[in-house]
């Protein structure tokens, strides 16, 4: 399907790149403006300053570093937990025979259809009873499993050849050995996709985190920033500096894993 491409295609593609990028560029530019010049369209390069970043990262009035730390802790725990829980479950559905496998899998599929907001109220009540509001437990433990990722994992392991398993059996490996020594080392693309999706989802999570965090010290970055905007909405340079500090880690991860990221999206697309 290689054919000559009209230059008009390039023009359109580049124009849309601008649409995609300008909001970021404008936010970066604004975050370096001094407070007095935030609304000036053009501030000369010599007037640009790091003041809003310094303020965010050091001012005792904003616990930005604490929010960042909370975000990292929560996202890392949830990601690792999901990797373990989902991979084990997906593997069991793909590769083991046991009674009630079909019905159990149907339950996971059915739950996938239910929007998470349905359990917003009971989850809040449950976590309040456990005393987990404003705790790391509350922000992590309920989110360690994802039916969708189990589904994805199952598809991945179903696609692997049976010969692999038979060869391992001949070599005298049991079910655990086959998983840990044969299949797990081969599932790097699956691990990468899951890591990226889960990390991204959690890093950007807002509905649940704003429900479960009411004390400043337990805010994750999105909740903290929303609050920062609510309090100092004239200080756009600070708010946008915060926005960029929230965005940059995700963009770095995206660049590192870009290939798997896009593949992950595509494979999950071909259901």
């Amino acid at each position: 399907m290689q054919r000559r491409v009209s230059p008009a295609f390039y023009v359109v593609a580049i124009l849309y790149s601008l649409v995609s990028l300008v909001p970021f560029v404008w936010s970066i530019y604004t975050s370096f403006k001094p407070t007095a010049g935030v609304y000036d369209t053009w501030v000369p390069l010599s007037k640009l300053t790091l003041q809003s970043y310094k303020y965010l990262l050091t001012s005792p009035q904003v616990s930005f570093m604490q929010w960042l730390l909370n975000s990292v802790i929560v996202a890392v725990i949830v990601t690792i937990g999901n990797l373990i829980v989902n991979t084990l479950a997906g593997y069991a559905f793909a590769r083991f025979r046991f009674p009630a496998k079909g019905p159990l899998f149907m339950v996971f599929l059915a739950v996938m259809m239910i929007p998470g907001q349905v359990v917003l109220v009971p989850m809040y009540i449950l976590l309040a009873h456990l005393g987990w509001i404003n705790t790391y437990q509350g922000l992590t433990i309920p989110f360690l499993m994802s039916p969708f990722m189990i589904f994805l994992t199952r598809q991945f392991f179903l696609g692997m050849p049976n010969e692999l398993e038979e060869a391992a059996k001949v070599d005298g490996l049991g079910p655990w050995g086959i998983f840990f020594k044969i299949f797990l080392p081969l599932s790097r693309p699956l691990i990468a996709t899951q890591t990226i999706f889960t990390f991204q989802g959690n890093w950007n999570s807002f509905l649940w985190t704003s429900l479960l965090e009411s004390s400043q010290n337990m805010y994750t970055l999105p909740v903290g920033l929303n609050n920062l905007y609510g309090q100092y909405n004239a200080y756009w340079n600070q708010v946008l500096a915060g926005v960029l500090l929230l965005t940059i880690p995700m963009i770095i991860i995206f660049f590192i894993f870009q290939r798997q990221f896009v593949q992950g999206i595509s494979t999950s697309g071909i259901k």
Partner: protein
Amino acid sequence: MKRQRPQTRNRFDQAMAGYLFLLPAIVSLCVFLIGPIFYALYISFFHFSFLDPQNKQFIGVRNYIHLFADPLFLRALWNTTLYAIVVVPVQTAIALFLALIVNNLKGRTFFRIVYYLPTVTSTVATSLMFMFIFEPQGLVNNFLKLFGIHGPNYFNSPTFALPSIMAIAIWSSVGQYMIIYLAGLQDLPAEVYEAAALDGATGWRLLRYITLPLLKRTTFLNVVLSLIGTFQVFDQMDVISQGTGGPLNSTLSVVLDLFNQAMSQNMGYASAIGFVLFVIILLLTFIQKFFFERNDEAGV
């Protein structure tokens, strides 16, 4: 008999391993999803305040009936529907258009990354970025001024607030659907195109009669994912209106209403909203499926 023993042993081992591998997922499923779903259903039949659960009052389906007489909920439902009706087709169309364009270009990876960046960015971040861009004296209005247009105060205007949020949503999700389309395009069989080319089909006709029909499954997936996503919209509405759904409830979404009802201790009522949302999403998915499958049979 001796040969059977290792086999049953093996089968038992497999079953045990299977259950053990599933154990964490099942515990989590029961405690944090299935249990809460049933509890949500249960309290949706009660007048239930979290402050005072002892005094919960069984009211049958009154929460559900009340929903459809509640101007706030109806407004939220209307806003969300409108939001979906605009966002889903526009976003799907732009995504398809960009995928078709970018598919044959050199530097495809570059465009793919650039278009995908907004999707990676948190909705809170994109909302805040655009709130500044849509300020009365912001970038958009300064640009419009070049053409002598006096732009509105977007997020304080009941007319412009929701459309502005729609624009942000489209901007931030086009990349995701474009990637799925690109994957679909890559899967199209080359032979079909060769045959069509022999028959003299080119350009527009190729697109209309070959590419679009072959992409139907991809389109179905995109539309369903997009519909499910749009009906669950919350983040943008909450950040931009600071939780109020204003101005004049023009940006109140179903989930924002649910959230606010739960926060104001109307737990049973909030649960009922959750189930109505669930039914809507389920219905839309079935309708979509029916629609696409019927077209399949008709060979359109």
